[in-house]
C-alpha cells in the first residue's frame, strides 16, 4: 500500500459542513442554492409585480434595467387613448414623471372619458388642468407609472422575473418532495431486498427490471389519463420512476455491507435482522445514499421540467420552470429571452446541486476508508 498508516486525526474529525465550507466549489454551490431558495420563497412577495398581474400595455417587453414607459410607449399609449376618447392631440409634453397633454375635439369632452387613463398601465389617473371652449379643449396632466421589468414580460404581459421566482417554488418543491418520496421507497425496498437475499431479492429485483423497462413518458401519460392533470400526480410519476435507481444503489450497498464482519458480529450477538438493518447497514450506507440523493434532486427537477414542457405537468394558474421554458421555446424567434432566463435559473440550480452532490460523494468516499 502506498499510504502511510498513521491516521490524520484532524482530517477525519472535521464535520461534513466544515468540509463543504472548505472547498470553494461546494461552498459557492451551497450558497447559490440557499439564495435561490430564498429568492423563490420571498421574491414574489417582495416584487412590485404580482405574479399574475397582466399589463396589457406591456406585452412582450424585452428585459431592461431602465424603467418603463419610455417616450415611444407614452406616445403610443397616448395616441391609443386619444383614439378611444375620439379626440385629437394638440400637444404633449413629457417631462419624465408626467405627461401634460392638450386634447381637442369638436364636441365637449366628457370628463368620464378620462377613465381610460385609470385603466392604463402606463398612466396614473389623470386630472384636468384647464378646460377651454366649453370642454372642447382640455389640458390635463397624467403622472407616469414607473415600472421596471428586469427580465421583460411574457406574451400575456406578466413580469417574467416574478413568474420565474414563483415557478421556482414549484420546481424546487417538486424536486425536494419527489426526491424524498423516492428516497424513502428506494431505501426500504433496496435494503430489504439486499439483506433478505434469495427469493425475496430475486422477485423484488425482477419488479425493478419491469418497471425500469417501461418508458417514463408512458407512465406519466397513463397516470395523467387516470388521475387527470393533478399537481400531486407529478410527484407520483416522478417518484415512481426515480425510486428504482435509489433502490438499486441501496441494494448494492446492502449486499456489500452484509458481508462485513461487523454485521456478522452483530448476528453472532443475536441481534435480529431489523436491528442490524437499522443500526449497521443503513447508517453505513448513508454516505452513498446521501450522495445519490443530492444527485437525485436535479434529475427530478429536470424530469418535472420535461413533463411540464410536454404540457402534462402543472397547470394554470401554477407554473414551473418547465412550463416557462416551453412557452419560451414557442416564441423563440421574437423573444428569445423568454426561453433564456428561465433556462438560466434552471441551469444554475441544477449545476449547484450537481457540484454539491459530487463534492458530497467525494467526501464520503474518502471518509469511509
Amino acid at each position, binding site marked *: 500500500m502506498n499510504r502511510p498508516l498513521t491516521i490524520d486525526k484532524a482530517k477525519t474529525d472535521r464535520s461534513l459542513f466544515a468540509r463543504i465550507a472548505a472547498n470553494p466549489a461546494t461552498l459557492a454551490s451551497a450558497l447559490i442554492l440557499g439564495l435561490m431558495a430564498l429568492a423563490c420563497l420571498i421574491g414574489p412577495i417582495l416584487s412590485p409585480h404580482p405574479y399574475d398581474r397582466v399589463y396589457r400595455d406591456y406585452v412582450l417587453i424585452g428585459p431592461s434595467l431602465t424603467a418603463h414607459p419610455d417616450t415611444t410607449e407614452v406616445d403610443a399609449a397616448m395616441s391609443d387613448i386619444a383614439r378611444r376618447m375620439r379626440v385629437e392631440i394638440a400637444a404633449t409634453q413629457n417631462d419624465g414623471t408626467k405627461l401634460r397633454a392638450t386634447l381637442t375635439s369638436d364636441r365637449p369632452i366628457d370628463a368620464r372619458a378620462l377613465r381610460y387613463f385609470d385603466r392604463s398601465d402606463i398612466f396614473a389617473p389623470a386630472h384636468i388642468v384647464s378646460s377651454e371652449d366649453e370642454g372642447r379643449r382640455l389640458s390635463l396632466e397624467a403622472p407616469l407609472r414607473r415600472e421596471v421589468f428586469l427580465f421583460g414580460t411574457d406574451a400575456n404581459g406578466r413580469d417574467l422575473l416574478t413568474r420565474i421566482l414563483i415557478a421556482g417554488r414549484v420546481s424546487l418543491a417538486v424536486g425536494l418532495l419527489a426526491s424524498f418520496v423516492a428516497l424513502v421507497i428506494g431505501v426500504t425496498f433496496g435494503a430489504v431486498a439486499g439483506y433478505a437475499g434469495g427469493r425475496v431479492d430475486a422477485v423484488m429485483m425482477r419488479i425493478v427490471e419491469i418497471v425500469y423497462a*417501461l418508458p417514463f413518458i408512458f407512465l406519466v401519460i397513463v397516470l395523467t389519463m387516470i388521475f387527470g392533470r393533478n399537481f400531486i400526480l407529478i410527484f407520483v410519476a416522478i417518484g415512481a420512476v426515480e425510486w428504482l435507481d435509489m433502490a438499486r444503489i441501496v441494494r448494492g450497498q446492502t449486499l456489500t455491507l452484509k458481508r462485513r464482519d461487523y454485521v456478522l458480529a452483530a448476528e453472532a450477538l443475536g441481534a435480529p435482522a431489523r436491528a442490524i438493518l437499522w443500526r449497521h447497514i443503513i447508517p453505513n450506507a448513508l454516505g452513498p445514499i446521501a450522495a445519490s440523493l443530492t444527485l437525485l434532486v436535479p434529475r427530478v427537477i429536470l424530469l418535472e421540467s420535461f413533463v411540464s414542457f410536454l404540457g402534462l405537468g402543472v397547470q394554470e394558474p401554477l407554473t414551473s420552470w418547465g412550463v416557462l421554458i416551453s412557452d419560451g421555446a414557442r416564441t423563440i424567434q421574437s423573444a428569445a429571452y423568454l426561453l433564456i432566463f428561465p433556462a438560466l435559473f434552471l441551469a444554475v440550480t441544477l*449545476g449547484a446541486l450537481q457540484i454539491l452532490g459530487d463534492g458530497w460523494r467525494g467526501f464520503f468516499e474518502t471518509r469511509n476508508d
Partner: protein
Amino acid sequence: MVRHILARVMAAVPTLFLIAAASFFLMRLAPGGPFDAERALAPEIAANLRHIYRLDLPLAQQFWLYLQSLLSGDFGPSFHWRDFTVNELFAKALPISAQLGGEAMALALIVGTALGLVSAIRQTGLVAHLVGAVALLGIIVPPFVVAPLLQLVFGLTLKSLPVGGWNEGAWRNQILPVVTLALPLIAAVARLTRAALIDVLDQPHIRTLRAFGLPAAHIYAHALRAASLPVLSYLGLAAANVLTGSVVVETIFGIPGMGRYFVDAALGRDYTIVMGTVIVIALLVTGFNLLVDLAYAWIDPRVRHE
C-alpha cells in the same frame, strides 16, 4: 458462456410478458377510448368501430388475441392512423429514430471518451476545468433548451442549417438533432470515463506497469480497457431509450420518428402503437443488456470463467 446467454434469454421471456401485460392493462385503465377525440360519431358507427377493433370483447380475451398476433410478429392495426398497421408505421419511423440515436451514441462515445481520458491524465488545470464545464453543461442544459437555442442560432440567425424537418435524411437536417441528442450523453460518458480511469490508474497493477518502466501509451491503453466497463453499462441502459427516439428532439425539429408517434398515440389512446412501442423498447433493453453482458465477458476474463 453459451449457457449463461441462454439462461438470460429464457429469463427475459417472462419479463417481456409481464411488461406487455402491465402496459396493456395500464393503458386500458385510463378512462376514455381511442375514438373519443374525433368528431362525435353516430352511435351505430361508433359501435361498429369498436367491434372491428375488438374493443367490445372482454379485456382478457383482447389481451390473449393481442399476444397471439404478437407471436406472429404482427403489432396490429393502428387505431388512429387507420389506413396503416403498426408494423408499417414502425417500419418507417424506427429507422429514422435509430439512425439519429445511433449517430448520437457514436458521437458521444468518441468525444466523451476523449474528454474523459484527457481530464483523467491531467486532473488539475485548465483542461480539466474545461472538460468539467462541458460535462456539467450537458447535464444542466436539457435538450428542450438546447434544441430551440440551436434552431435560433444556426437556423434563424446564421441561416446555415435547416431549422427542422427530416428531408429524407439529408445530412444537413441531421446535424442539429444529433448534436442535441448527443450532448447529455457526452457529458455522462466523459464523467464516467474520467471517474473510472482515475480509479483504475490508482490500482496496484498499474503501479506494476510503471515499475517496469513501460511507456505511458501502453499504460493508458490498459487502463482504458478496464475503465470501459462502467461506460458500457451506462450506454447499454441509455441505448434503448436513445434509439427509440427522443420525444423532445423529434417534436422540436419536426422529425417523423417513433418518439413523436408515441406521444401522439398515448395522448390519443392509440393502444396498439403505444403497446408496440413499449414492447420494442423492452426488446431493445433486453437485447442491449445482453450485449453489455457479452462485452463484459469479452473484456473481463473473470466474468467469462465464473
